């Protein structure tokens, strides 16, 4: 417990834009201009030059309003969106000798295998993370099946185990998702995400839209999982309360740029950037 925490993810100059871009884009876009879209060429700069590091066992919060670029950033790390510039250096925590790999340069096969094996993602809306036509068990089984698990008995045992870990009744393994409540569906997503024993968990606004009491329980679960598995997490939220509960460090995004980053407590106590100050003051 006293060894230095190893780096898991190191993001360097990560950028994504939609449109051709022009020489004047930088002049007219960014947090000072309160806009991500260049009025000259129409290009949307969804994420500009993002840099941060994530250590093993750490929870990094990403705060921003809608349009800030936080979901784009998350989806680039999820290898679902290809960045235009930058690197996503990954260090395999299970293997100290392993070299850092730039996830952004992997081919489609490798990306898919990596995403299935080493990443887990949970979405705000269950229909994004789950297939509503399959049973709950089928949904949780998907990553296992993709990883070539071929014994139904073993698969079901693992599913039940995961359901117990996420406080879901294991006897409901064959039920359809539409018979589950919103909070329970978030747990199903978490169970699915954990099924491959990932090294990084991505959480995109997972409690937004849930009742406060349900939210609290899901947050408790996430905290417990983080503790039990020493899970490295990237937590996107617009809710400072959620960030405060789970994230040790936070980055704040506005109009595609990271405007502030540091220890969550410090940022909330003593925000430096005017936008962060605005967020913090309006949260109360």
């Amino acid at each position: 417990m006293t060894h230095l925490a190893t780096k898991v993810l190191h993001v360097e100059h990560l950028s994504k834009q939609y449109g051709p871009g022009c020489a004047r884009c930088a002049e007219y876009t960014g947090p000072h201009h309160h806009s991500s879209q260049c009025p000259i060429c129409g290009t949307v700069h969804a994420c500009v030059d993002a840099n941060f590091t994530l250590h093993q066992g750490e929870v990094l919060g990403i705060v921003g309003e809608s349009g800030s670029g936080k979901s784009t950033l998350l989806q680039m790390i999820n290898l679902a969106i290809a960045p235009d510039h930058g690197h996503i250096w990954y260090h395999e925590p299970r293997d100290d000798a392993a070299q850092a790999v730039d996830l952004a340069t992997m081919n489609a096969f490798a990306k898919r295998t990596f995403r299935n094996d080493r990443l887990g993602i949970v979405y705000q809306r269950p229909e994004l993370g789950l297939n509503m036509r399959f049973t709950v068990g089928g949904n949780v089984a998907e990553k296992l099946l993709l990883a070539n698990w071929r014994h139904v008995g073993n698969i079901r045992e693992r599913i039940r185990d995961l359901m117990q870990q996420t406080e879901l009744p294991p006897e409901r393994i064959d039920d359809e998702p539409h018979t589950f409540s919103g909070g329970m569906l978030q747990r199903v997503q978490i169970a699915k995400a954990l099924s491959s024993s990932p090294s990084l968990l991505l959480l995109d606004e997972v409690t937004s839209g849930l009742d406060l009491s349900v939210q609290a329980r899901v947050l408790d679960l996430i905290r417990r999982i983080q503790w039990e598995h020493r899970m490295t997490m990237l937590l996107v939220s617009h809710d400072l309360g959620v960030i405060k509960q789970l994230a040790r460090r936070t980055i704040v995004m506005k109009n595609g740029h990271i405007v502030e980053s540091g220890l969550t407590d410090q940022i909330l106590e003593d925000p430096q950037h005017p936008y962060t100050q605005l967020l913090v003051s309006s949260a109360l």
Partner: protein
Amino acid sequence: MGYIAARGGTNAILNAEQLVDYLRLKGGSTPLSLVQIRDQLRHAVGRAMNEGALYAPMLAALAVKQAEGDSIEASFLIRAFRSTLSRIMPTRALSSRQMRCLRRISASFKDIPGGQMLGPSQDYHIRLLNTLLITESTADIGRVHAHYQELIAQGSNDPHAIGHFPKVVDYMRDEEMIAPLPVDQQEAEPFDITRTALTFPCSRSARLQALAQSDTGCLLTYAYSSVRGYGDAHPTLAELRYGMLPVEVNHPLTGEAVTIGEIEVTECETVSKAHSVGTHDTKPRFNLGYGFTFGHGEVKAISMAILDSVMSQAKRNSLGGESGPAANEEFVLLHSDGIEASGFTAHYKLPHYVTFEADLKVLERSKQHKTTQEQSRLATIATHLKEQA
């Protein structure tokens, strides 16, 4: 010997052919001549041509006769025949500006340069059955001919007699009302769906070709759904023209443009209300939809134009309103060919007893599984009851 196999397949087929013939001829009525069909059933002939994708009025008349009026069957015959023809050469790119219009209307403006010409339209017929047609005689036809000869003699000095009109969309383009074709959709050569299999996403020329030979009813249904709300609900007809289009080719020796004849066609252009926004060019413009058929097929041409417009907009994500199946290019184009659709739907008449046997086996196993599950459930309950007692 208990077992009797189904034999005599060849005889059955030959007898079937004879029976079909008999049904057509048993009434003993006067045989239909191809000229009669071409002249007096021109919409059936036109439909066989445009769904058969071959411009050949007399062959289409033959197909209509052979198919006993079944429009899908008639277009099937034409399509199969087209397959046997070798291709001589492509035409030059034709423009409907050269069309000799018999009919030309626009719903976009009250008046248009050249004027609105109603032409031979059934639109304003009051749909009452005309019993005079029951006793129509050759003499009646003679009188109609004589009357028209007089009208023609009177009208031949009219400058509009030739029926050349400017295009309404050209004026719209001059006024910058219409979005230009995006760069990624411009093609040097049109796609040829008869030589290359259609894959998705497909180019606009591929889409238009596929729509042009699609079943009229199918296109109508999809277009109707899109204007009722599941798509681009507000198309405006820029122009509808029906008439004779000259066909030009490059002379094989001299390379000069040569007109080899005329074809009877219908063309429709619509503009949509949803404003499409180009990438660099931020001015909003209307989106153009294009429809075209051989023969006089207004419903099909309009439906095609609406669908072309809906699909273009859907691809650009600029569709207003709820999008439905009509906006899904793959969904429409894979299901709109009448010959394919009817062939596969009808193929269920073919024997399927091998797969059915396989299905029965699976059903048995499923039933056994359910029974086993039920039994184990009851056994568990019984055990619980015993333990409680």
